């Protein structure tokens, strides 16, 4: 009887600890990753090729409109300024070749002159990506469904205009307080970039060649990089800006 009780007591602690540790490890190391799906961007877009290679500015694609709204992702109209494939001409050529315009693979394989002659890229990989964009989106008149790493839901109103005059240099004073909000390395550069995009967006995206996968939360649909409300609030509070509900919600 004594013996059993002893073993019971001992057995009472060990399994408990095993269970405790197991879920602790799982809960910290494994489970958080399960919340996210990895989704690739619809086509390979290299910022490096456009910025470094073609010497484009950020503002070439991401600019303010006259009414103060921000253009965000460029539309086909903007892209077509350089990727000068005439959709009508291309569609006619596709029809002539007897290809179903929704059969992208066939079009890409067919090497249609109206498309191929107007591709701007140098090497094969890039050309393939450009061709994919032209065939799947540009000539179809469909906008590319880019995935926004800084995705915010419809109930959030964000004004780029209100943040455009903020500089990284100014914000560097608050780097300690903002260590959970902004990637600390943003403040460590020798010379700060003119634009303040790095504060919230993927750091140095203009140098990026292969865009990273978009990590989508399986429950909420948010990006892993979606800035949560407390981050916005922290910075607003530090900068003496209002944190009223309607400052950011709609």
């Amino acid at each position: 009887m004594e013996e059993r009780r002893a073993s019971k007591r001992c057995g009472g602690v060990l399994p408990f600890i095993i269970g405790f540790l197991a879920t602790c490890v799982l809960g910290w190391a494994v489970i958080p990753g399960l919340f996210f799906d990895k989704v690739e961007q619809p086509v390979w877009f290299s910022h490096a090729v456009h910025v470094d290679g073609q010497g484009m500015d950020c503002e070439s694609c991401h600019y303010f409109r006259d009414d103060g709204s921000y253009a965000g992702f460029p539309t086909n109209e903007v892209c077509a300024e350089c990727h000068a494939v005439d959709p009508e001409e291309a569609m006619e050529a596709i029809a002539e070749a007897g290809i179903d315009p929704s059969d992208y693979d066939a079009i890409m394989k067919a090497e249609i002159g109206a498309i191929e002659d107007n591709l701007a890229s140098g090497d094969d990989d890039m050309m393939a990506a450009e061709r994919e964009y032209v065939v799947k989106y540009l000539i179809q008149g469909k906008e590319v469904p880019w995935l926004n790493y800084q995705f915010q839901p419809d109930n959030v109103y964000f004004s780029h205009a209100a943040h455009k005059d903020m500089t990284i240099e100014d914000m560097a004073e608050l780097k300690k307080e903002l260590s959970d909000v902004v990637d600390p390395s943003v403040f460590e550069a020798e010379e700060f970039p003119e634009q303040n995009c790095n504060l919230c967006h993927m750091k140095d995206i203009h140098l990026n060649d292969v865009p990273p996968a978009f990590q989508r939360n399986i429950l909420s649909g948010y990006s892993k990089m979606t800035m949560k409300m407390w981050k916005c609030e922290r910075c607003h509070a530090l900068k003496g800006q209002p944190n009223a509900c309607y400052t950011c919600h709609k």
Partner: protein
Amino acid sequence: MSVARRAFIQMSVGATVGILFTPTVWVALDDVSIWTQNWPWIPRLKYGEVKSVPTVSKMCDSGCAVKVRTCAGEAFAVAGNEDNPLSGGGVCPLCANSAQVKNSPNRIKTPMLNGEEISWDKAKEVVAEKLDAAGSSVAVISGDQNGTVNEVFSALLADKGSDAFYMMPCDMQAADKAWTGLMGGYGQIGYDLEGADVVLLAGADALESWGPTVANLKAFAANGSGKFLFAGPMQTKTAAVADKWVPVPAEGMAAFTLGVAYYVLQAGMTVDVADFAPFRAMVMNDYSPAKVEAATGVKADRMAAIAKQLLAASNPVVVPGGSVAAHGAAFALNLLLGGAMKAVPEFGKAVSTAMSRSEMLNKDILEGVNADLLFVYEANPAYALPEQVKAGFTVAFDSVNTETTASADLVLPTLHGFERFDDLASPYGVADATYSLGVPVSKPSVNAACAATFVLGLADLGFETFEEVLEAKAEAVGADMDALAEGGAYVAPGETPVAAGLAANVLGKAAVPVKGSGALGLVPYTLLNVGTANRATTPNAPCTISNNQLLGDKMVVMMNSATAKQLGVGVGSKVKLSGGNGECEALVQVFEGVLTGAVAAPLGMGHTVGDEFSKGKGDNVYKILTVSSEAAAGASTWAGSTVNVAKI
């Protein structure tokens, strides 16, 4: 209890405690609440450049000059067009919902021949064939009162040797019959509501449904010091903001107007026309206030007071509504007063063989239409005039499904107003000749086409496309196409009206009130949010329709408490209204703003075809309207309709 099981339980407890020390549970809780903010079945917004593009919307009878707000090229809302005098920044409740109608599932998606989908080429073949076979037995019913599309249709008729052009019944028609027909006047009558200092709305529900409603409302708002008097059988929304409501039965409107004219003549006012003396004698003898009071129930001192106000005004105007006689009487009174009534000159034609507007208004649809081949353009006669219209083969042009398209042999989808070229040439009632142009704002979302361009392909009328017709129209108007496309209107001032006579002998007879044989007078009224004869209510408008018009799926009719008492009904009583050749079911609402002995019923409900917002909602009052012939004026009218009301 075995050790293993106990160990398992203990481990589970440990695991449960352990997980609470990780972010898992808390993050999951947070994610679940975020999930509730972004449920996958809740539609997402689309973002892009927001623009305001000027065009015209023709949902309401007169049409609205609007700016369509688009986001990433997709129309989502409608705003007024401040630069256009027809809007001045305002929009009517029907046109305010136009962008939603454009995307409505009720749009006709492709041409249909007897219920079968066909191609446009096939449709053209069919129509060409029918046109050949019909010879001159071709007719057109147009639901557009002021568009150049009518020129194209009338030119087609001219080409086939037919003059059977019909417009849906409207006050513009009565006005034209009275003005150009009886009184030999020139131009289209207009009313300067903004400049007038006393406005007597004699049956014209000008601030709700009559004429260029939005322009009227703007004029009313801009007219700071003017007095607005409303005469009519019911306290309409116009009456709610007017300075005074004078209850006058619809069939008595002409007599009432002449009763007012009596005092004006007594004050010595004259008009320089040939038949002034007989007119004066007719009014003084037959329309003395005592006689008018006996015939209409309007007190003599009421009319005297109104006449006094009109006489004291420097720029008064009387705006008629209803029968031809009511229009004639009002025009005569306006000529006597010499105030703010205008004659608006008609713009030049784009299509040389087309009819003039007055010619288009000549035929009376209430007297019936019968043709081998009938074109119906954005009108809904099968709903509003179910008994008058007959045809061997009907071609219906419309953008949405209606009773007319449902019963037509061939249905041809027209482009929605925001997808096409269209125009507004001097909607009836404007004081100045006004021309506005509408340009496409969105890409077509269904396999629709421009009706006028289709018609141009049927006969050689000198144009290939409707856009070319409109270019010619702009040139004929003398306006700059580019300025028009930017939303500005071309305006030429209205002129002083000149008549050949006052139609004394006709008016004298036609103004006698004639009432049907039913127990109660029927007061049909139009609210734009409920819909018009041609357009049913729109998706967002039902929220604005009060329970005084519709309760559940039941129509509501209104009467004052004296009438209700007399009928032995109360609020919520279910009644049957019978009149004309039909019956309507309704619930009773007591509203003290209705003439005693009359029942007010909303027009525009009771659709049997259409979307869920209009179909099966309420009852169709057009069924119980009685067409009576204004023999003296040579016209037909709905005024004087009566009904019998039975409790069920």
